[in-house]
């Protein structure tokens, strides 16, 4: 890939696109992947709150557990960015998140 020349680049190294780091997929750093057991998850927001990447997504997606508990929200891991630190699993009060080895 050829990079832009000095004439193409905005002057002064100003980055004009906010949040352009989304192009940089840090998910490749991961050796362990968190998996959320939606059956066990109590939707307490803890993993979302503590994720250093903001890679736990809180989505308006209803979920009904096998035992009939209904939730309006679902938490999902954005594996494009999750670095696999494991804070979510460590902090989950109901141990609904398991760190699973990435298999290449």
């Amino acid at each position, binding site marked *: 890939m050829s990079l832009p020349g000095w004439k193409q680049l905005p002057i002064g190294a100003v980055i004009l696109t906010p949040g352009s780091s989304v192009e940089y997929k840090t998910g490749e750093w991961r050796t362990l992947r968190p998996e959320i057991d939606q059956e066990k998850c109590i939707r307490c927001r803890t993993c979302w709150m503590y994720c250093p990447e903001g890679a736990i997504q809180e989505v308006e997606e209803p979920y009904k557990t096998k035992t009939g508990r209904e939730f309006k929200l679902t938490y999902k891991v954005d594996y494009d960015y999750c670095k696999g*630190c494991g804070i979510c699993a460590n902090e989950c009060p109901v141990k609904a998140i398991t760190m699973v080895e990435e298999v290449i």
Partner: protein
Amino acid sequence: MSKPLTVWDLPREEYLAPGHRMCQGCGAAIAFRHILKATGKDVIITMPTSCGEITSTVYPHTAWRVPWIHVAFENAAAVASGIAAGIEALKRKGFIPKDKDIKVVAIGGDGGTFDIGFQALSGTLERGDNVLYICYDNEAYMNTGIQRSGATPLGAWTTTTPVGKVWRGEWRPKKRKDLIAVAIAHNVPYAATANPAFPVDLYMKVKKALSIKGPKVIHVLSPCVPGWRIEPEKSVEVGKLAVLTGMWINYEYENGTYRVTTPVPKRKPVREYLRLQGRFRHLTDEEIKKIQELVDAEVARINKLVGKEVIGPVEG
């Protein structure tokens, strides 16, 4: 006092984009996310040179979804003052709408705050400039590879306070420089400590600080995976233990009144905080005892400032 906030008060909006290159399990990254949730979009952030600065803005990528500027290492407070002055002047002259409330926040590391940026910070605070200065404190120069700073605690191993036959980690025998006391000595209206293991508390403090005109300081403990020699999944746990052992006290100062925002009726021994971290692995019982004494003294001091025993004795 309004009713305490809960985790559900944290806005879903993320102004720190993923794709930043902060370390796995970085405490500062958690802090940055919640600081930005509290500032909202109408803010200008300035950062001095720091690990969080370089890892969040590698050209052409920026993790910041709000306006942001880095200038140098020792001058974040000064740059913030300039931004605030510019906004003020441009508002007066009609270039920026008068009713537009743009907050100015500097976020510096401990090196950029306690050491090299100290003079500029003092200037900003004494002039009364309308900025919020946040120090994220990982207790050493982590950007350059874990060198001792003015914020490195007693006993901590760093690459410049190594453990050898003569040296046993950082040897300053007293409590480190008290940033909040320094801020209060400048007669600031608001100063607080916070910790990313308690994001709601951090969020509340940033919100409150921004509602007050004048200079404000928030000192945030920032667990550091490589620098503290901890496992990446443990940074929040370590942050919590810092509070539960009294190594770190979440409190705020507002117009002469101190308030502990995370009371700890029964403290855990500091050993529990220290043993999770490789940087303290070499400490002997005697050395740990010395640290415990420093913590006990600080807890007593804060309790006295608050006027009651909000942090209790060590249990067991």
